[in-house]
């Protein structure tokens, strides 16, 4: 596997839209070719080379390409957008849309990510060692297909509206979240190891939400079903199962109504 290292040398005065930073775009390219890829600041088109020191070269394919992004990238958006394979390691805190519409490969952020990370994600593995902002793994505005596959793991806390319109895949948050978890969720799994204050699973049609800590205010449309022993993220524990949201439409399968499942750890 070949490694390309991007080290930021010039900060953008506005924000940089760098959706070209993916293994797919870097594969088969030399450092000079990578530096010539475009990036936008406001209405002007520049090149990655204006902002980053590029060293190393891309592998033959995206899967053979690893990108390491160094330095303060808190004003850089869209890193890893639509990546399908390979690997990106971001050592600091990137801005919005990190790993948006990601389809495959591995994306590791050692710091925090801002809002809209992993929106519309279809596949791959996305690990955030710090905190995540709002709309993690959510749908893009107006889209009814949120996250559809892959895994997002946040070691810290996450903001509000995570898993909005989620259809598939898994989001694991080791810390706490803000309000609105899995709103309009139709499928997939959200695991919160800390607390979620309120509005958990509102308008949920299907899918599963696990909360290990507390929920201050439950949505009214969740009804208790039973206690269960389950293995979640490699651990065994006892959970109370609730069905919901009973205020929302629900499909039938084999004559049975299919509900969203909310598991609260006992």
């Amino acid at each position: 596997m070949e490694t390309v290292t991007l080290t930021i040398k010039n900060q953008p005065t506005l924000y940089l839209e760098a959706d070209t930073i993916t293994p797919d775009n870097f594969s088969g390219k030399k450092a000079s070719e990578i530096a010539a890829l475009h990036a936008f600041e406001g209405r002007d088109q520049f090149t990655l080379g204006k902002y980053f020191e590029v060293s190393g070269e891309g592998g033959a394919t995206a899967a053979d390409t690893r990108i390491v992004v160094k330095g303060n990238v808190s004003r850089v958006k869209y890193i890893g957008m639509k990546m399908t394979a390979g690997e990106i390691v971001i050592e600091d805190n990137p801005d919005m849309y990190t790993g948006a519409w990601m389809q495959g490969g591995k994306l590791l952020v050692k710091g925090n990510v801002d809002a809209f990370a992993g929106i519309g994600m279809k596949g791959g593995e996305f690990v955030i060692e710090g905190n995540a902002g709002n709309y993690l793994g959510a749908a893009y505005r107006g889209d009814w297909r949120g996250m559809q596959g892959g895994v997002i793991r946040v070691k810290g806390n996450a903001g509000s509206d995570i898993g909005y319109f989620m259809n598939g895949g898994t989001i694991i948050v080791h810390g706490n979240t803000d309000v609105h978890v899995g709103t309009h969720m139709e499928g997939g799994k959200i695991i919160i190891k800390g607390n979620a204050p309120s509005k958990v699973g509102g308008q949920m049609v299907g899918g599963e939400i696990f909360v290990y800590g507390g929920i201050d205010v439950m949505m009214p449309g969740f009804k208790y079903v039973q206690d269960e022993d389950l293995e979640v993220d490699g651990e065994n524990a006892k959970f109370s199962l609730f069905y919901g949201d009973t205020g929302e439409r629900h499909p039938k399968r084999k004559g049975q109504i299919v509900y969203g499942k909310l598991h609260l750890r006992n």
Partner: protein
Amino acid sequence: MSKSVTDVICPFCGTLCDDLEVVVSDDGKKIEDIYNACAIGAEKFMHAQAAGRVTKPRMQQPDGSYKEVSYDEAVDFTARMFYKARKPLMYGWSSTSCEAQSIGHEIAEKSGAIVDNTATVCHGTTLIAVQDVGIPSCTLGEIKNRADRIIFWGCNPCHAHPRHQSRYSIFPRGYFTNKGHKNRKMIVVDPRDSDTAKMADYHFKVEQGRDYELLSALRVALRNEPLPETVAGIPREKIIEVAEVLKSGRFGIIFFGMGVTQSLSKNHNIDAAIMLTKDLNEFTKFSIMPMRGHYNVTGSGQVLGWQFGFPYAVDLSRGFARYNPGETTSNDLLRRDEVDAVFVLGSDPGAHFPISSVRKIAKLPSVCVDPHITPTSEISKLHVPVAFVGVEVGGNCYRMDNVPIDARKVVDPPEGVLTDVEFLTRVNTRLDQLIGGK
């Protein structure tokens, strides 16, 4: 002898009353009296007459004072600001005509601007919800003639839209509602004892920030599913009772305001309210309508919508339209230092935005186009006074139910003062020259 102008449109709130009568002096320069308008509407007309009105553009000097400049200089300064900026913000648009908005959008396309209107701090969340789940709505005329179940959720029309209830929603005798308010059941959801709430048949004093739960509970009740003993501070029995009242009506309407659009849950509140409306259509006819504030904020959404596909927070910086509230909304842009110039027309962010955003505007190159001296004009580098739309110049406006109404001119503007359309057209022409290298 004075003359009377009838069927005048009130350019103040989203009710856009179209039955005002204005008495004008013979020379057509002075308004002497106004009939039919509510207090705030009448004030808008009178304000145009106030003494000491600014009639020349004013440029901020290094010591913070303002110096009068000509309109030519103002046009040149504004066009140059757009020419230099790489991501200008064009904010406001809610107190001007659709014609002016359209010219503003031409400038926005050329300069890669972000166009945002006052919905960004008002009903923008409504527009997000509408995009997510659609909206079953109607016109105010239908409500007047048919509606017998009226919900005011998080709004206080007695003060914000004073003639809304007498013209459309509660008191008028319509075709199928010939007993006026006696035909109607009124439900108000508001944590406060507002004057609107005092008139209600049912007043739900919802706990603050729990509207989403209460809307959800009503949906649960409609499906005959079990509910907890209280939701959002309202006992279960009351929720079920009101659900029955709503079901038993012939035509219902939910009006909602900033109490739900800008409290916790924001767009999700509206999303849930729209879904409740949809659910109620299983039993009877139900509609839902936002109580839009500025008289033409709806028009701004319309014009942006048909030109770019999104109703506010439209980012044209990359040459195609993008939209993502939370990123391309004015306060987020200002807070995060994402824009490098600010142009304000038809709104007063200096008075309504958080102080952190206002400070950012004060630091950037900025132009404020407004008939009055406002908090925004006082922090802008250039203030351009213009004629009052709906008083001194006509133009198209959209009522809160998306009905377009042409506002009328009743008096002449002060001598030499340009209209929004005239000023924007000149800026647009000057910008063309600058882009062409002249």
